[in-house]
């Protein structure tokens, strides 16, 4: 085994793995800003970016909520209604979690 190979096989390999993961993650984190600073933001691009927050939320939660069945769907609906009524995010969150806990306690 050459020097580099035995270095990677030593406990320093984990340091290298974490460094590598950190590096690619940081590149993902900065890439959007770097690219957009070199692109002229047309109305079309702006429309696309404006759709992102809601899109990323639905793309993240929909499969998870459906996998967890009707209690998760009811809890999510209650959370959204509580948030719409109060506009206080922590109230919406607690309403949703409370609903889920109650359904599971009796289910």
């Amino acid at each position: 085994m050459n020097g580099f190979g035995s270095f990677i096989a030593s406990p320093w390999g984990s340091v290298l793995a974490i460094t590598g993961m950190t590096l690619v993650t940081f590149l993902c984190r900065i890439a959007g800003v770097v690219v957009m600073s070199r692109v002229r933001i047309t109305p079309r691009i702006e429309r696309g970016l404006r759709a992102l927050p809601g899109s990323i939320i639905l793309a993240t939660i929909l499969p998870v909520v459906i996998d967890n069945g009707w209690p998760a769907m009811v809890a999510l609906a209650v959370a959204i209604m509580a948030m719409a009524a109060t506009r206080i995010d922590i109230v919406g969150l607690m309403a949703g979690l409370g609903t889920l806990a109650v359904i599971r306690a009796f289910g």
Partner: protein
Amino acid sequence: MTLMPPALRPHFSYSGLRHGARAALPAFPGFIMFALAFGTAAAQKGLSLGETMGLSAFVYAGASQMVGLEIWQQVWTPATILTIMTVTAVVNARMIMLGATLQPWLKHEPLPRTALNLFLLTEAGWLIGTRYHNEGGRDVGVLLGCALILWLVWLATTFVGFFAGALLPEPKRFGLDLVMPIFFGVMLVPLWKGAKPALPWLVAGLVSLIVHALVPGYLFIIAGALAGVIAGMLIE
């Protein structure tokens, strides 16, 4: 917007840091549950405390940390290091889009502060920052304050999970396994501007469901998000 002074130019203030730290509060439960789960899983997998904290402190991206554990090695080779870097990049590629929306807000910031802000970028912090920005706020301190406090919460609860994870009660009993999805759902409400602007969200949701059914892993998130952005560009 009577509450917020008209400050439409991006700026930075230390009072913004405090404001951001307070605004981050609703994201705490999700961060705590996820970091506890990660710390617990890392200890069970046999990672050292240094490796576990290193992943949480520097990679600081929950889904990729969890996936990383699945392919973690006792003895590394160049090939396994390349694999874990590739998998991490795929799971975290969605962050490219988060950064893209922040660019107009950050473009006059000094580079080191933007680097720190982006190093600490997470979906939850970004959603809180986006809400603040949509309501007219332009203080970059809010984004950074939110990010800093969430990072500290993440580190502290990774530590607790590493040592005490096995002692904690079953999170499912309290509905805490779904705390992150429910928080995200709550953050959808202030984004709502009527049915038509939400049409891309529907596309995003449908595409993510299809991809989730067909492809294992976390690919459904970026696939759905990309579909939503493209739909937003196409719908006049």
